[in-house]
């Protein structure tokens, strides 16, 4: 049988620490943190005024008449998607538009617009709700705008599974290419949650990290005994996914192959993760890639720095990889770029692909004192260069329990490819 393979031909990011994959990866490699104190007056009154912002002004990218229709979440998505398309040197006007699709993950959607609308209604007691409130805040706005701007007329889908949303968006996009429904999918995630209302709601759940008094940029400490929670970040990340022969035929540069996608649901508790659910998703991803547990060379962990996640994820990795778990570098780049919620899965997959291409594993920062329950090789403090990486895994777990795991491999990983067929 002819197996349709999924090539990754373009990457795009607008994230804390970089508005291109090269800038972002340089900063991650150097262990820099994009987390900072939120000093603007709008954030006054927060218990934990920290976050990972993107230096991004939509007015530099969109005309005045258009920007009024776009929440920040769509602005970030459109710019990251444009990068992924340009990187792939893809011209949608020469493609069969119904054979191309868009797949986006977001958790909060147009949160800024929603926040502003509520302020108008309840705080100002005003009737002046902006006419574009519904269209800017609806969760599928980002995906729709990408489709409109590039004339992509196949499936246009938005997934919302909290923190695994965009891992699901990528995985489901890959499945559509494999099934033969489409040849090209622009897939990614976007999130713009840094509003007072959203931050306040997350604080109320007691999951946000306490600011590090000496160094706010070190507030997110995955796998550390001193971890106190996650730090919210904003941004967008997109990949251009193509059926392998489609990419080869147009002479595209294939950066990686998306070979594995595993999806399970905890069915236990709305916030507490389970070892069985996370391990099941990793195993399912290995199975779909046709890889053994000995063939994964790096795991980009979900690693949120919440009390619950990090020990459960560590236990799940050990359950899946056995003794080998101790030999695989596992890092949480959230220690630097924060938790992008619905955009996290796509961003971390893009980082994993960049690792694969460069043979460099980015570090977990601020891990001076590991939790005894977290005893793997977390690449603490310093990036590791000169690595031979053939297959990398990116974990995304979520409130609600939807666990999504993606695997990318070197495009020339011939031996494994043959063994899969």
């Amino acid at each position, binding site marked *: 049988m002819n197996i349709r393979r999924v090539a990754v031909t373009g990457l795009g990011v607008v994230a804390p620490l970089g508005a291109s994959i090269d800038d972002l990866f340089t900063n991650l490699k150097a262990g820099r943190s994009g987390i900072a104190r939120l000093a603007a007056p709008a954030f006054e009154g927060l218990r934990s005024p920290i976050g990972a912002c993107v230096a991004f002004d939509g007015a530099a990218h969109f*005309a*005045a*008449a258009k920007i*009024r229709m776009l929440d920040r979440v769509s602005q970030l998505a459109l710019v990251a998607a444009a990068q992924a398309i340009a990187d792939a040197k893809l011209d949608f006007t020469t493609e069969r538009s119904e054979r191309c699709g868009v797949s986006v993950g977001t958790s909060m959607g147009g949160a800024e617009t929603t926040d502003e609308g509520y302020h108008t209604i309840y705080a100002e007691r005003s*009737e*002046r709700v*902006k*006419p*574009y409130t519904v*269209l800017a805040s609806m969760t599928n706005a980002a995906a729709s705008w990408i489709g409109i701007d590039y004339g992509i007329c196949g499936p246009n889908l938005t997934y919302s599974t909290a923190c695994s949303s965009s891992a699901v968006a990528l995985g489901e996009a890959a499945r559509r290419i494999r099934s033969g429904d489409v040849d090209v999918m622009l897939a990614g995630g976007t999130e713009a949650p840094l509003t007072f209302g959203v931050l306040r709601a997350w604080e109320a759940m007691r999951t946000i990290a306490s600011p590090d008094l000496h160094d706010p940029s070190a507030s997110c400490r995955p796998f550390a005994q001193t971890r106190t929670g996650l730090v919210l970040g904003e941004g967008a990340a997109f990949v251009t996914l193509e059926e392998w022969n489609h990419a080869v035929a147009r002479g595209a540069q294939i950066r990686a192959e998306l070979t594995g996608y595993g999806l399970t649901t905890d069915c236990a508790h709305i916030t507490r993760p389970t070892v069985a659910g996370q391990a099941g998703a990793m195993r399912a991803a290995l199975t779909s890639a046709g890889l053994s547990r000995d063939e994964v060379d790096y795991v980009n962990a979900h690693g949120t720095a919440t009390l619950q996640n990090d020990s459960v994820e560590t236990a799940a990795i050990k359950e899946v990889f056995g003794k080998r778990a101790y030999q695989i570098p596992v890092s949480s780049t959230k220690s630097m770029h924060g938790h992008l919620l619905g955009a996290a899965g796509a961003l971390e997959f893009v980082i994993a692909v960049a690792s694969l291409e460069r043979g460099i594993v980015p570090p977990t920062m601020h891990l001076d004192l590991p939790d005894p329950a977290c005893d793997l090789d977390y690449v603490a403090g310093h990036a590791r260069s000169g690595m031979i990486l053939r297959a990398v895994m990116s974990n995304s777990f979520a409130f609600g329990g939807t666990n999504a795991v993606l695997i990318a491999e070197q495009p020339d990983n011939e031996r494994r490819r043959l063994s899969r067929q």
Partner: protein
Amino acid sequence: MSTLETLQDILIDEFALTREQLTPDAELNALGVDSLDLLELMFKIEDRYKLAIRDDVPTTLSTVNDVVLYIDGLLGRQGKALGADGAALHAAT
């Protein structure tokens, strides 16, 4: 300042248009100002003229002049012929 000039100022600010494009018979749609934009525009007009427009903006306004006539009509009905600077100034049309 006439109603036309005031409207032109707002549209120039908000939609990056030029005064030359904003002739009285220019079609709003052709200028990239659609029906939802027009509703948002009305918030600015309410402020400028201290008018209460609420949700009764007719859907038949298609040219710049249609909007001018609509505003002037409201100014007459609500007895608030105020200029942008708040001085008693009759909207000259």
